[in-house]
């Protein structure tokens, strides 16, 4: 079965509509969303309602959690005072805009979704806030997938799509018997291939251009296609300004930059 996986919509309606249109014209009917439906962007209600209307299974992203749990479940992830101030402003604006029904919907989203050996998360199986970057230490990446009991882990959060196969992994253990004090026995256990697929971002791309990204995965063949979809960027930028959000948000989106920088620590996990 071929299915589509998207992430990090960030209240960007024009981008979501373009991605859904692309998926529809490919005839794909199974879609999974990896969270961050809201945050920074100008149309939080419209985006949540479209996801609900299309009955797209979604897990909860860090922004979805923050809106429900209150400011700010992960302020330690901001790398600068400027990023923190902008993040707080966007958080407050989004919380004020969201309808109660949509907040209840975001609160109901699960941390993870599982379909057989496929696992869907926002950041990592450990936390919505952890970044699984493409150059993350191979063992740490393998540990995340293996511990979660998955063959393939779908994640988002970094806003940069990638596919990473974890091959040739092995665990070497040394066993010292409590009764036999001769040399400890050493065993090496090969690990099967594991895979991490990052879906990029629909609403706040930062992979080098302004196109929305998502992925198509074929469960039978294992093939993955990273799709790039142009959308009406000007419409979203205009909506940002009309909503009273900082105009610099529109500029950053139009340049393919994130609204506020992420922390550089790839293994960062909020210790709230």
């Amino acid at each position: 079965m071929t299915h589509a996986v998207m992430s990090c919509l960030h209240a960007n309606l024009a981008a979501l509509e373009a991605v859904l249109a692309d998926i529809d014209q490919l005839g794909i009917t199974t879609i999974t969303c990896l969270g961050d439906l809201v945050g920074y962007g100008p149309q939080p209600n419209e985006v949540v309602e479209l996801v609900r209307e299309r009955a797209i299974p979604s897990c909860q992203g860090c922004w979805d959690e923050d809106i429900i749990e209150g400011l700010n479940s992960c302020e330690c992830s901001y790398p600068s005072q400027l990023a923190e101030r902008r993040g707080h402003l966007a958080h407050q604006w989004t919380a004020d805009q969201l309808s109660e029904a949509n907040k209840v919907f975001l609160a109901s989203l699960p941390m993870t979704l599982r379909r057989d050996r496929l696992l869907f998360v926002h950041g990592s199986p450990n936390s919505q806030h952890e970044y699984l970057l493409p150059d993350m230490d191979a063992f740490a990446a393998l540990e995340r997938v293996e511990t979660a009991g998955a063959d393939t882990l779908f994640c988002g959060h970094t806003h940069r799509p990638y596919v990473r196969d974890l091959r040739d992994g092995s665990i070497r253990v040394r066993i010292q018997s409590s009764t036999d004090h001769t040399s400890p026995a050493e065993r090496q256990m090969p690990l099967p291939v594991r895979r991490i697929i990052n879906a990029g971002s629909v609403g706040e791309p930062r992979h080098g251009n302004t196109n929305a990204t998502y992925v198509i995965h074929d469960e039978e063949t294992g093939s993955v296609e990273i799709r790039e979809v142009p959308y009406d960027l000007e419409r979203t930028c205009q909506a940002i300004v009309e909503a009273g959000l900082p105009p610099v948000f529109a500029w950053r989106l139009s340049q393919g930059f994130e609204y506020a920088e992420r922390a550089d620590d790839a293994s960062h996990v909020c210790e709230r």
Partner: protein
Amino acid sequence: MGHTLLISGPPGCGKTTWICQRLQAHRGPRAYLRLGGFGDEGQQQARDGGIDAAVLQDRVDNLLDLANPDHALAPRPDNLLALIEVPQFQPPSASGPDGIDRRLIPALDAHHLVPDAHLHFGRDRELPAQDTLDFRRLESWWHNLSGTVWDPASLSSFWFELVNGAYGDVYRAKALFNLPDGRGFFFNWMVSQSGSQFEPLTAVAPPQGRPARLSRLVVQGKALASGGIETTLSDCLLSDAALELQQAALRLPVPQPSAAS
């Protein structure tokens, strides 16, 4: 016997850099004066808020500031090199001292200065060839940042946004910024050059409160979003509490390695 040079040219052509190099290379006493331009010559665009003088004072030891009346009116020491900087867009009408704009004469007289040479960027070969921009059609905006201290990571983001067009079409930006550890930095960027110049000042203030040194931001360009710049500035500057939090850690004594027993 001293030497008094008047250096003119458009903003951004490299006057201050050249002047700094000449002053640093001179073995005797040195003096500097910056005169403003004229309204029909884009005086507003040339305004620098005192940044050039402050950078030169930092870079050149014992530099006499001729804007200070005590220095201007005092007897000139032997072998004094006095350099006078003037923003000027149009090439002079004549070569040498005869080409000095007559409107400058009262200011020069007031400082007891009689230039024995006049060099203009874009005209005289003694000066380096520079890409000069026509700033007369540009807006100019500046902000007094004295007493402010920046969150360093926020400063990096702000400067990136500023010179990449987030707040309008910026053609030139230069500034003196303070950091929590007491360092001051000169930032300089021009649209015609690749990359920004980031140079630390040699004078470092103790990490105790807000430095008293001059701090300014000057921007020239088109359709400048000054309101947006000011909003971002307020999000980047440290409050007293945040500054004290950062400086308290810097004031802790550095642990010394214990002597081997």
